[in-house]
């Protein structure tokens, strides 16, 4: 974050007080001496409103986790450059003094990481790790913090919380550790919760418990949640809006129902067709996306997905492909695609109409 170009925020959505988190044109570059900078995130815009869940979907290398780290201000200062704008309730976070940002983290915004074993301190009891957040951000005394920590653990469904406060992370099961992590994140009732693959390391029945817990929390506390995942099933069950990323850029954004019923970008479409579904008929071969997420073109030359896309042609070699609305789709349903999959009957406006 050595360089920050704060842009004026677009007046349309922020002004109504609707969006709590407003990310505009976020870019992250990793720099290394003697090497070309790597552009991990490129012009990402998204917003999350209070009491809502936005899903951020992508495969490894799509830039979804880097986006979340940039929002939290957790990227290494020396080796990364962040540009654009990240506003939390109207306050610009990029370029904010580290001390002020640290005061916000844990208090106004909190994060739940994928692997609870590596994000909890193994040599500090759970209770201390929960009360630490409370003592840092509020002026409760030790006893008060302990009572509150006990209450938090109970709320996230950890049985016998008073005893568990003295336990170390290794004494808890995977699901319990993830609950403890959620308890820490929720300690100061943050307005924004970022959950980065919160259930990927868990078994399905435990995953169902944790997702149910997150769902309740959002409903009860009005927290805005950014849920980062690769699992489309989790998105279908939990999110209100979905943003799909590929190779550092947003390729599609829509409401949950829109996205699943009318995926427009060919990547989203391919992704949905390639996962085996529990409720689908057996025996149909899966339709995989050819190639791997590594086979990408730089966005500055063409659509990064073009090498894997069955519909790619010359139109895709367009460096100015924009994330835009398409005819036949809902107004807030945007896709960055020259040949989007559009509902029957609605011809694409410009591209491919003559073919």
């Amino acid at each position: 974050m050595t360089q920050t170009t704060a842009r004026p925020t677009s007046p349309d959505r922020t002004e109504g007080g609707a969006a709590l988190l407003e990310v505009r044109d976020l870019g992250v570059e990793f720099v290394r001496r003697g090497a070309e900078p790597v552009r991990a995130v490129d012009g990402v815009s998204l917003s999350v409103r209070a009491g809502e869940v936005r899903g951020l979907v992508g495969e490894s290398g799509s830039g979804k986790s880097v986006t979340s780290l940039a929002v939290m201000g957790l990227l290494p200062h020396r080796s990364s450059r962040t540009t654009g704008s990240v506003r939390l309730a109207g306050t610009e976070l990029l370029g904010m003094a580290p001390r002020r940002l640290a005061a916000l983290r844990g208090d106004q915004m909190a994060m739940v990481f994928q692997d609870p074993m590596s994000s909890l301190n193994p040599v500090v009891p759970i209770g201390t790790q929960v009360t630490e957040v409370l003592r840092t951000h509020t002026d409760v005394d030790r006893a008060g913090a302990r009572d509150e920590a006990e209450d938090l653990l109970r709320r996230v469904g950890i049985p016998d919380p008073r005893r568990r406060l003295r336990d170390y992370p290794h004494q808890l099961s995977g699901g319990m550790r993830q609950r403890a992590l959620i308890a820490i994140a929720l300690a100061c009732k943050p307005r924004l919760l970022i959950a980065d693959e919160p259930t990927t390391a868990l078994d399905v029945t435990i995953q169902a418990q944790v997702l149910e817990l997150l769902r309740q929390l959002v409903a009860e506390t009005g927290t805005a949640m950014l849920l980062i995942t690769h699992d489309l099933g989790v998105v279908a069950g939990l999110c209100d809006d979905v943003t799909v990323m590929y190779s550092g850029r947003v390729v599609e954004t829509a409401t949950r129902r829109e996205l699943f019923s009318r995926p427009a970008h060919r990547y989203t479409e391919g992704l949905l067709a390639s996962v085996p579904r529990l409720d689908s008929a057996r025996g149909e071969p899966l339709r995989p996306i050819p190639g791997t997420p590594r086979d990408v073109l730089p966005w500055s030359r063409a659509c990064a997905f073009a090498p894997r896309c069955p519909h790619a042609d010359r139109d895709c070699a367009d460096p100015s492909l924009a994330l835009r609305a398409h005819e036949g789709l809902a107004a807030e349903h945007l896709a960055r695609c020259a040949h989007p999959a559009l509902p029957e009957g609605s011809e694409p406006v410009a591209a491919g109409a003559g073919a």
Partner: protein
Amino acid sequence: MSAREPAGASPAPAAAASGAPDRPEGDVLLRVRGLQVHFPIKKGLLLDRTVGHVRAVDGVDLDLRRGQTYGLVGESGCGKSTLGRAVLRLEEPTAGSVELDGQDVLALGRGELRSLRRRMQMVFQDPMSSLDPRQSVESILTEPLRAHGVPGGPRAWRERVLELLEVVGLPASAAARYPHEFSGGQRQRIGIARAVALSPDLVVADEPVSALDVSVQAQVVNLLEELQDRLGLTYLVIAHDLAVVRHISDVVGVMYLGVVVEQAGSDELYANPLHPYTLSLMSAIPVPDPAVEDSRERILLTGDLPSPANPPSGCRFHTRCPFRQATRCDDEVPLLRELAPGHVVACHWAEEVRDGRVRASSASHDPAAVAEEEAGSPGA
């Protein structure tokens, strides 16, 4: 069956003792009876006392017909991987029997076992840690050929390597490269090529796709199916993902805490799940379809998997079962019963659960989530 039965001298199971496959119902390639794998828990520095056993696999029967795929599902710690390894004798079973084509795998000496391994191979979960990073792909694929003395020498082996690469959809140029030069999906293809190098009869695949990116998983699933048709392979697929298992398996077994609690044909199991654990497992799997997700009845399990060192009495699932009854569940071990042709289930109350005469105590129909959904989704 005693837990301390020395491996190798396995007790002959009731009917399947004779080597010749004389059953009319079909050609059973792999027959497992009463398989147990217990790991001792040691305490003390010098005396090394054994203070208990982790019952990772605790009495599993399994029949796998030639050319079919048996899918084994369950959560981490249920013993499914240990079972897969025990079948190949990568783990020494404590008791029970494993027969491949009528040959008792557990009675074999080292040399005999080695030659039998030609016929049974394994695909591992993480292709990065199961391929030697310092070996080229050619060397990786030649190794099984050399180790088992495939005739023809280096020239024939090289031809075979190229053939294998072609079979798994990799270019011939891949032979000279090293594992780190490949993506996860391609590495898994190399792992699969190694497993089929000796034209085995049985391939045990332990979580073959779970380490891969979503868009690549389907490629590997399709490859496994294609190879099965092409090479006549028989698969034992171990996975936690029911959707994947359902897709590739003919028969599915559900494991919980070391035992198989339900087994049926793939379609039958998904259409009519009977065991409460299967029901809750299926209701917990997210489906990428909002309409389905919103209308589903969720059976949320409470708590975690109990310790396999000290499994619960009676039905092992009774501590978490939403359908638990006052009688039988806590103190009577349920045996596998056949409720429909080929569909066996180990639950005292399976019929009652199926007919709705026994209701789940904590089944949440999730009215809160549905209500929130209706209120929360933006109308415009």
